[in-house]
């Protein structure tokens, strides 16, 4: 009564797993950039918006940061069809993760917004800049370097933890592919050991790339190891 490891069976599935890894990266990138745009909008509304807009942005952040991403994706995938909206599993996962990421990024960016000195903002106002011009020409260049590490870390979290949530509704990203293959060849231990290795490689590649971008763009002394 014992178990014999057969890693050859798992390695034979490497091409399928790598297809899943590509989808994981794609989902991670799209989620991050979509979330960043929402984050920028949310931070702007919370900083410069009127009472109603600030309250709405606040409710959005509270709701999406206090409920699991999985619940949000389930709602989109299983709940919306009951009212006639039928999106495919990739779209539901992307929208769910983007809205979730947007809430966290709203707070990250808002922290950056309020770190800009009041005198700079008053000077921009005096020069007749609109709110959007202030954000674009004064705030973003100032805060980019300061919030870059937080954004880079957040991207790695989305890539590794966020995207795998899609596996629950059948998205064939890395974890989803591994589950589908494992339920056919029953080599769970071997498959998920290999998948863990692929995730480590993905995060190392992402971390190194972001560190290099940080050094080049902001002269940040980013260390990966």
């Amino acid at each position: 009564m014992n178990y014999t490891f057969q890693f050859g069976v798992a390695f034979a599935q490497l091409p399928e797993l790598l297809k899943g890894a590509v989808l994981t990266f794609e989902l991670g990138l799209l989620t991050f950039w979509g979330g960043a745009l929402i984050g920028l909008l949310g931070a702007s509304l919370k900083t410069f918006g009127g009472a109603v807009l600030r309250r709405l942005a606040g409710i959005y952040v509270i709701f999406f940061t206090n409920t699991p991403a999985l619940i949000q994706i389930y709602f989109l995938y299983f709940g919306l069809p009951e009212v006639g909206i039928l999106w495919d599993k990739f779209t539901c996962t992307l929208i769910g993760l983007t809205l979730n990421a947007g809430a966290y990024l709203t707070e990250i960016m808002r922290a950056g917004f309020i770190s800009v000195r009041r005198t700079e903002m008053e000077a921009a106002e005096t020069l007749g800049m609109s709110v959007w011009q202030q954000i674009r020409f004064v705030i973003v260049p100032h805060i980019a370097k300061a919030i870059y590490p937080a954004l880079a870390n957040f991207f790695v979290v989305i890539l590794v933890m966020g995207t795998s949530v899609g596996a629950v509704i059948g998205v064939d990203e890395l974890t989803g592919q591994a589950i589908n293959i494992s339920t056919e060849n029953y080599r769970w231990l071997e498959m998920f050991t290999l998948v863990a290795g692929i995730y480590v490689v993905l995060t190392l590649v992402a971390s190194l790339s972001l560190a290099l971008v940080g050094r080049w763009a902001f002269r940040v002394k980013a260390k990966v190891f």
Partner: protein
Amino acid sequence: MFKRMALSCLALVAALAASFTVVEAKSLDDIIKDGVIRIGINPNFPPNSSRGSGGDWEGFDIDVGNKIAESLGVKVEWVPTETPQRVPFLVADKIDISLGALTRSVERAKLIEYTAPLHTEVMAVLMTEKLDIKSWKELDDSKYTLANMRGNWSVDYLKKELPNSKVELVDTIADTVRLVAQGRADAIVENIDFFMKHTKNYPDVKWKVLPEPIDTGWCAIGVQRGNYPLRDLLNIALYSMHSSNFVNESWEKWYGAPMLVKVTPNPYF
């Protein structure tokens, strides 16, 4: 830097390797000594196994499990086990035996032991009236999407028989039916007896069944690899349950109709 990283990785791999201890099955003697047998059942699989209105487990698998425990003189610990978890739970010794319509397949037999058959399952097509087909073979077209569960033996079978159709995989029977009800998939090609109860959740959907039987699967009880004493005991218990007509009567009680293809009791195994 890289030397430090390499050493850390080696240490991690060594630690992981050390933690991969072999998980041996609980022996028949231990089950009898402890007075409890852990039976894996699907938690939402009416009429095989589900919670009744009082919260107790009920269904065909529950009747069979109770009969097995009675013959052993032990109590039952029911372990909720979704379809994709049946084989992994046996391998990891989280359950002593697996029910849940565990169809015999070579892939599974590489990892677990099977008893003689407990019951059969006959595949057919469950779809809605939106689909206008007369035979299951017409589903072999990329314009059709089939709903199925991860870990079902039919996933592999349909890849060979209907290679052109698309497949959407989910984790539970309820979600499989929901896929078709919501229009994400066109049909379920499986033992549709297992899915019919869930269609009642969608009274507005016009369900349709193609009665043409496709294939017969043989479902048995799974035990961990090498647990021969338990497997042999179960075979003897199964012979007794079949020859006394307990299995057929229980099936008809829960499914409302006799098993389409009955299991012939055989004293030799």
